[in-house]
């Protein structure tokens, strides 16, 4: 039992073929530019629940795609969309 990602180009492939890409959400409450840079460099939302993230199919079509996954059970919640 391993996590499968349905790549729109390549079909259902094991997660080991992909590289993870976090989407950084710097809180709007942080307004100072240096502090925003620091937050982007180090801080994580790291939520328990649905998260929008990107995966790069390094061992396949080599395209970035965006999806929504629930980190509590690794269920992929929405259709996976490849970057244009």
């Amino acid at each position, binding site marked *: 039992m391993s996590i499968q990602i349905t790549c729109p180009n390549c079909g259902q492939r094991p997660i080991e073929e992909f590289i*993870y890409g976090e989407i950084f959400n710097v809180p709007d409450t942080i307004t100072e530019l240096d502090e925003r840079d620091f937050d982007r460099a180090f*801080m*994580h939302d*790291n939520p328990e629940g649905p998260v929008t993230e990107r995966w790069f199919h390094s061992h396949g079509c080599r395209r970035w795609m965006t999806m929504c996954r629930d980190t509590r*059970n690794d269920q992929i919640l929405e259709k996976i969309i490849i970057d244009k």
Partner: protein
Amino acid sequence: MNKNIERTVHLEWKEPNASYDVIIIGGGGHGLATAYYLATRHGITNVAVIERKYIGAGNSGRNTAIIRANYGIPEAVRFYQRSVELYAGLENETNRKITHKQKGLLTMAHSEAGIRTERARAEVNKAFGAETVYIEPDEIKKICPQLDMSGGGIWPIMGASYHPGGSTAHHDRVVWTYAEGAMLRGVHIHQRTAVRGLIMNGDRVTGVETNRGSISAGIVVSAVGGHVTTIASMAGLRLPIRTHPLQAFVTNRYALQLKPIVMTADLLTYASQTAKGEILIGAEIDRQPSYSYNSGHHFIQSCTHRAMTVLPFLRNLRILRQWTGVCDMSPDYSPIMGKTGVSGFYITTGWGTWGFKAIPVGGEQMAALIATEKTPELIVPFSLSRFAKDRTMADRGSAGTH
């Protein structure tokens, strides 16, 4: 689970008070050790440890129980060496068995770069209080005859650092021993009590909201493992932590003795023998940030292949059990301990895949911080503020897998 604990240690469960001097969120090794050292070293006993499941249900019950101090930077060597010493004395101090066994640790080099790393590790260790020597293949083979020195023909073992202080213990017994030691001195431990929120009085944390009601506290400490960002966000605190699953598995009983703990950094795998004779094997974290405890087939496939490269006898063993923990990974693979910038709220986190070995020193140092309100010198390098000050304690090569 509780019947087994009750045969080993004596635990008494009480109803929560309305308030405590100190509330520790998280009934794992770090939280319980903190409570134990608060009670035994500082006489602070009006303390509650709040655990949402049962003690040791999290990473403390899921690790591969390796104790070592063979890290690559001075701050880490000093810190983990203190823990090696505390672990060595724990059975005597508590009059309880934790199946502690000092057996030595081999960290093998399969390349010139690996040789340089292990030579450097030995020198840094020696300089800062830990015992480690660089050894050549003939000595490696003497220490661990089961090794395939050719590394399956692909990963020849060219050298290794040998750390005599490398030890193993029984992770659950460590948890239960600290729990009992704290409880005997008046600390309360509340299982099946989940923290839903932090009570704030202005800027200061003054208690916790739980599924069993509100409890106020002078100081609240988070000793939570993988789920730490959830707790921190209750205080409006962002953390440089990302949670990743870490898998491990254990084989059936191996009839001979695997003397040392065997680690191969290049192959990112390590193995040790349990008290029951089984071989316990671990490797690297999963690539996806996740809180899921699902174990996977790929891990077994990849990890067994690497382990068998250096320990071919594994071929004849069966996998009994596979499991997962969720690790709070920090950017520099070093822990994050101390004040948070939020008044009344301390934290011990960033234990990633390297937390078990530090349970005693982590507890000892956090207790000293709580008691004196001053960050002890040994953990100043691990402050949360280090990232903003560009003083990261980067030591991924040493923390890597365990």
